[in-house]
């Protein structure tokens, strides 16, 4: 048990790298499998000091629900932003908003920031984890309180449930 974390500090990343290598490789030959194993073991080992302790996936099913929701939101919000961008620009009300977040874990906070950036209309600018504030730039703010509440309700709350924090 003590050998396992030392040789494979991040088994999930090891599996991910091996899987990606096999997907990208032109053929599923023995040589490629060997390369996948070498890369999958060596890359997490070389970069081990960069990886913080990864939080435990408490509820993977909620994660899938969240993923589907994010994809849906990307489609809906892309459409809205497309209309805003092509329409008259003086109707836009861009603003910085501070979203108070209750996530301590750096990995989960990064996930939340990435989701906010991927959904059109909002880009994460800065995370102040000490103060617990995610600074977001929004293309069009109609109602700031409603926007903050939506980010907290739609993304932060399920993320906290997925990782049990």
């Amino acid at each position, binding site marked *: 048990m003590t050998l396992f974390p030392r040789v494979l500090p991040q088994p999930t990343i090891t599996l991910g790298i091996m899987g990606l290598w096999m997907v990208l490789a032109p053929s599923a030959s023995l040589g490629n499998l060997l390369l996948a194993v070498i890369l999958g073991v060596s890359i997490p080992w070389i970069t081990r000091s960069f990886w913080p302790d990864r939080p435990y996936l408490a509820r993977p099913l909620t994660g899938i629900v969240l993923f589907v929701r994010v994809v849906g939101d990307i489609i809906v919000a892309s459409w809205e932003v497309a209309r805003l961008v092509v329409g008259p620009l003086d109707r836009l009300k861009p603003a910085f908003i501070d979203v108070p977040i209750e996530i301590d874990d750096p990995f989960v906070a990064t996930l939340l920031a990435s989701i906010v950036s991927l959904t059109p209309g909002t880009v*994460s600018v800065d995370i102040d984890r000490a103060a617990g504030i995610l600074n977001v730039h929004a293309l069009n703010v109609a109602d700031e309180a409603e926007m903050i509440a939506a980010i907290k309700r739609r993304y932060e709350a399920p993320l906290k449930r997925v990782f049990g924090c």
Partner: protein
Amino acid sequence: MIVDIVISLLILVGATFALVGSIGLARLPDFFTRLHGPTKATTLGVGSVVIASLIHSGAATGGVSLRELAISLFLFITAPVSAHLLAKAALKTRANRSAKP
């Protein structure tokens, strides 16, 4: 036939959103609003093209090509990171500029 129509529609949707992203980049007034254009073009624009490619190669060979999924995975991981770094750099240079006498 139906597959071709679906693929064409997906490519058109993808191209439209890539175009809208570029229009946004050209039209929007300042740096932070411009930042919204490229992130959008990658998410939905490239996403649609990737799904079209997935269906096309799947229909041509009969199997599922996972390579397209890897492409979208890389894009979805890197797009928010680059947007975040650009925004952070912009905030910092602006702060430095206003701090100067």
